[in-house]
């Protein structure tokens, strides 16, 4: 694998150049919250974060997305589709969040249900990852074969080593970008930093405090849709908000509706939705197959730990820890995994 070096002093120059040549999406800080937004240059970027409050999944699946506009003029109905995505660079995404994008890919790029809106953005985006330099108490990416310095899914992965970034070139797309800015991406001396990166990865791997063991969990859920466990405290304390699903980098449910602005003119929108909301599964006629919080809580964790695996052979969780951190009542997926493992053992 190829590697390059970027001096930290040149990062601003790189980001300014990228912002000029591409739509540049990078972490920013708004008040106390870190989130990903399109930026106009290095001055807007905020890279001193460990885990952003909101993941960059919105680059590919925005919370609000116009899928078409319709205009009825009296004789004709005109339908306009938005243009394809612009050339984009997603800079500074953490390894867990990049892995999360890989869990979205088969949902939106499968043969059966290809999604042009997603694919267009995915194809025109170069993902530049940024290794973590810290492990939080809520982090558990290691449990899903991830790691704080794991480059899986990134086109380029930056790892901070002293006053330099060690840059791994993981794809042709990444190589093309590094070559285009060859005055910043230097090839000299990269090999020496490879060892430093390995050491950092090893050091950080030892810093996880959350023990997560998935042994037997999938098998248990395969055999048992109904489990007494789901009637326990988690569904009692869940307040039914959508926080866990909206901060989750792998949750991808959406709703489609028409927003009519004039007489017969309007937009068809696709917006994030949450399986925690009662009306999410509400059917015409009033039937709701997930009538209470018990079914809704179960569904969320079944989706993460079973359904996504069944469909795509990937766990639907990447261990970013956002739901653990943000849940108002401390519902914790790592506790649920460990509890289910115990249920499986005692079954």
């Amino acid at each position, binding site marked *: 694998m190829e590697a390059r070096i970027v001096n930290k002093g040149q990062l601003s120059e790189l980001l300014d150049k990228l912002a000029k040549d591409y739509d540049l999406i990078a972490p920013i800080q*708004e*008040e*106390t*919250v870190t*989130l990903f937004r399109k930026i106009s240059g290095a001055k807007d970027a905020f890279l001193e974060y460990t885990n952003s*409050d*909101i993941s960059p999944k919105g680059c590919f699946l925005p*919370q*609000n997305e116009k899928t078409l506009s319709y205009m009825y003029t009296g004789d004709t109905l005109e339908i306009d589709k938005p243009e394809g995505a612009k050339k984009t660079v997603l800079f500074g995404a953490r390894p867990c969040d990049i892995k999360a994008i890989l869990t979205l890919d088969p949902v939106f790029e499968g043969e059966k249900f290809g999604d042009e809106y997603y694919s267009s953005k995915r194809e025109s985006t170069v993902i530049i990852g940024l290794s973590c330099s810290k*492990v*939080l*108490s*809520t982090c558990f990416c290691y449990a899903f074969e991830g790691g704080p310095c794991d480059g899986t899914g990134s086109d380029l992965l930056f790892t901070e080593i002293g006053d330099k970034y060690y840059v791994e070139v993981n794809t042709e797309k990444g190589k093309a970008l590094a070559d285009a800015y060859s005055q910043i991406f230097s090839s000299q001396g990269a090999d020496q930093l490879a060892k430093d990166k390995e050491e950092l990865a090893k050091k950080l791997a030892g*810093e996880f*405090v959350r023990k997560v063991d998935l042994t037997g969990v999938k098998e248990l859920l395969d055999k048992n849709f109904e489990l007494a466990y789901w009637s326990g*405290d988690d569904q*009692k*304390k869940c*307040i*039914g*908000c*959508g*926080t866990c*699903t*909206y*901060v989750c980098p792998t949750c991808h449910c959406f*709703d489609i*509706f028409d*927003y009519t602005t004039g007489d017969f003119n309007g937009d068809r*929108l696709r*917006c*994030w*939705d*949450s399986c925690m*909301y*009662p*009306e999410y599964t*509400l059917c015409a006629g009033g039937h709701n197959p997930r009538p209470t919080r018990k079914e809704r809580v179960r569904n969320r964790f079944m989706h993460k730990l079973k359904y996504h695996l069944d469909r795509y052979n990937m766990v639907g969780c990447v261990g970013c820890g956002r739901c*653990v*951190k*943000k849940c*108002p*009542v*401390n*519902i*914790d997926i*790592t*506790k649920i995994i460990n509890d289910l493992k115990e249920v499986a053992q005692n079954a």
Partner: protein
Amino acid sequence: MMDVIQQLREQAKKLLEEKKVDLVIGFGQGTELARTTPVFIDSPEGVSKLTWGPFCANNLAKYLTDYKNAPGNIAVVVKGCDSRSINRLLDDNQISRDKVVIIGVPCSGQLEWQKVAAEIKPGASLKETADNGDSFSVKTDAGDYKFDKKDYLLHRCLVCENPNPVVSDLTIGKEQPVKNYEDRFAEVQALEQMSTEEKNAYWDKQFSRCLRCYACRNVCSVCTCQICVFDQMLPMWVSKRTNLSENTAFHLTRAFHVAGRCVDCGECDRVCPMDIPLRKLNQKIHKDLGDLFESPTPGTKPGLASPLGEFSPGDPEEFM
């Protein structure tokens, strides 16, 4: 705090053993050292799950409406601020007094768990906590820590009207003095000083961040509508789309819907994943209700008249 925990467990056990209640809702150790989580205990053996300390932020009165049609009685552990919710729920006929056993615990402030967690060695486990007046000591298996209240308290606890429960059937722990680290309406006054354009810009920036996860609504103890107007599909007052206009409609409607009922527990502020200072909206309303109608914070006494539901000839009529 160990004696309070011990007494809590004893009292809860007694209530369950004597079948005075079928369920005790209290605080249990959470999955982070500096967090607790709501626990629902239905047998005397379960009471060892109960805990107490400076990490009991949640307002558990919220859960009472979940059980209003369940058979049997419910005991709930409340702090001073949470106990205002109980008065409010009673006045709103949301719960019946004879179904609820209120276990009040005087509280000397709750710490912001993220701030505490940032200081403590990851993976450490909690041994005990102690209140030293202006700070809390937190003993862990990885060392002892001290947290000054003025720096580590939840924002809402810097000003506390009721450290002691305003309504309870049994009180555990000793009475706490009122202690404020800030002026209650300082932030609201600062906002009031802004021009209309500045205020607009301030709130536009806050509301445009909103994800509409509805955590603020769902955690609110006085949001008790069975079907919220924002969940209605027909008519769809706000869509699933997030934008400034619909986000603003949501937050302002909510703020006014709980006006005169909001007990200022500050849970909306605490749970917002986007750190939108939602409590300021309701604090402005509290301030105005106080200034205009000399109305106390809702829930501070049972049977308080609703300031917006009652007319008296002396009410100001500056808009007429």
